[in-house]
């Protein structure tokens, strides 16, 4: 089709220039004839012919607008729309460029955010690891101290046990003393009995002294004195008895009080403290492996987070591929714009037909396609059969294969692979 249009245009151009050459040659011949034979060949003939040629040239330079449709109005509408198409393509190109810029900005922002996420995670891990190490150190220190405290408590318990034994021995001794004191009570009674008998004896002596009369006066004084002594002795015996009772009672009270203390003995409390220390040590022993596990989990989590971030960054390379796809669309829009500009000039008669017809231009676009999705979209739009994706496998690289599977799943299979995706030369 383009060849036929080109050949018709070329034939029209050749015929035009042939006519121009004949007319110019004739005008020159008339002017030359007038110079040689002025009478036979008037100058006006040559000048008229030259003027006619000039007018013809001017006329041919005027746009020879191709008529489209049945009326000039149709031609005007088509020409006007084709002339506006360049602006329409410019708008579309601008929109595509804006889309590239927007996606680029968004991807950059996402990458920066991921970077910050990584830094915060790294900072958090550093803090947790430091806290774990500190806790580890504190736990070890506490365990050591707990051990020392345990030993001290054990030592205290031994001392307390000995003290308790000594105290009980003392209590027993005190009880023995109390018993000994109580054993003095019969002596007081004996003194009181002696006193009473002495009193009776003094009374009898007084009676006998009274009988003796004057001779018994001295004896009477002695008997009175003995009786007074007897009374004092009775009083002393009573006081001794009361003193013994009070002393024994006081000793009993002290011993009973000491026995009461025995029930809440320090040894018992020490035993409880030792038990608490053992419990604390056991708890701390449980904490140490937990802290180690926490540290390991933190490292594992950090590795997973970083792996995900790195892989996501790799996925963001698709923005660059999309950018290239959009740039190809921009390029296609430019070629369409140029094509319609050429059509516009063709209709206006100012230029030959475009060097490439639109159908050929469409097929030229496929040469730049990188993705299978591009080829598929192209074929679908034109109602052609959809080409099979050309997936290239790397025989000994499982990772590369899985990556190729990923791409296939996302419809981003490469369209023009002519070798492995990753090739070490």
């Amino acid at each position, binding site marked *: 089709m383009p060849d036929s249009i080109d050949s018709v245009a070329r034939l029209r151009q050749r015929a035009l220039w042939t006519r121009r050459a004949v007319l110019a040659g004739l005008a020159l011949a008339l002017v030359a004839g007038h110079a040689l034979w002025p009478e036979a060949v008037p100058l006006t003939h040559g000048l008229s012919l030259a003027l006619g040629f000039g007018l013809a040239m001017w006329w041919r330079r005027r746009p020879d607008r191709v008529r489209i449709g049945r009326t000039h109005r149709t031609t005007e509408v088509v020409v006007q729309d084709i002339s506006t198409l360049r602006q329409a393509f410019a708008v579309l190109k601008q929109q595509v460029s804006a889309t590239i810029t927007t996606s*680029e900005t968004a*991807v*950059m922002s996402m*990458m*920066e955010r*991921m*970077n*910050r996420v*990584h*830094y915060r995670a*790294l900072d958090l*891990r550093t803090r947790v690891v430091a806290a774990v190490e500190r806790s580890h150190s504190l736990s070890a220190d506490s365990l050591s101290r707990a051990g020392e405290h345990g030993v001290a408590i054990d030592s205290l318990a031994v001392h307390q046990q000995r003290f308790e034994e000594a105290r009980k021995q003392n209590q027993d001794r005190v009880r023995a003393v109390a018993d000994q004191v109580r054993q003095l009570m019969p002596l007081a009674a004996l003194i009181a009995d002696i006193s009473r008998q002495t009193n009776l004896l003094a009374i009898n002596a007084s009676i006998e002294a009274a009988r003796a009369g004057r001779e018994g006066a001295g004896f009477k004084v002695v008997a009175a004195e003995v009786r007074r002594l007897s009374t004092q002795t009775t009083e002393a015996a009573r006081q001794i008895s009361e003193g013994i009772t009070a002393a024994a009672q006081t000793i009993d009270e002290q011993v009973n009080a000491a026995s009461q203390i025995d029930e809440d003995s320090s040894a018992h409390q020490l035993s409880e403290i030792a038990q608490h220390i053992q419990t604390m040590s056991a708890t701390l022993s449980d904490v140490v492996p937990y802290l180690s596990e926490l540290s390991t989990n933190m*490292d594992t989590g*950090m*590795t*997973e*987070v*970083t*792996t995900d*971030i*790195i*892989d*996501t*960054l*790799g*996925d*963001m*390379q*698709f*923005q*660059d*591929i999309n*950018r*290239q796809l959009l740039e190809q669309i921009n390029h296609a829009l430019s070629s369409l714009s140029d094509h319609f500009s050429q059509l516009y000039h063709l209709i206006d008669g100012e230029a030959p037909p475009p060097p490439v017809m639109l159908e050929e231009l469409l097929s030229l676009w496929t040469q730049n396609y*990188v993705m299978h999705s591009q080829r598929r979209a192209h074929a679908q739009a034109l109602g052609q059969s959809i080409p099979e994706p050309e997936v*290239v496998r790397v025989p000994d690289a499982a*990772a*590369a294969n899985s*990556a190729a599977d990923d*791409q296939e799943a996302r419809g*981003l299979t*490469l369209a*023009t*692979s*002519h*070798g492995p*995706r*990753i*090739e*070490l*030369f």
Partner: protein
Amino acid sequence: MKTILVVDDSVTMRKSIQMSLELSGFQVTLAADGAEALEKLQAGLRPDMLLTDIMMPRMDGLSLIREARKLLRFTPIVALTTQGQREMRDRAKLAGATAWMIKPVGGLELARILAEHLGVVLPEPGQAPGPTPNAG
């Protein structure tokens, strides 16, 4: 720490590769096209690897590979591009490239392949500090 000179005209590609590689334990220097990369090499930059796109303004990847090979005789030069044509690969190989990779190459996959190509062992992900984030 191995240094990789990354050359790509796409700012998102540069950033994506930079972050992926730095998080994987590499040090990264960036250039926006072949001409800028060549200027850096001529100024004395000696990376352990050159990773370059092919289609770029000012100086394309093939020209960069050709010129860089004169300065970096034994340094691995890897092309990372959307182009897959055999003819283009052959030209790159002839110019001095040592590997050809077609985008997209996942972040960890890219780091592992480059590490293997360089003969280095990478730390576990999450151990490297990564790039410094911008404020905000």
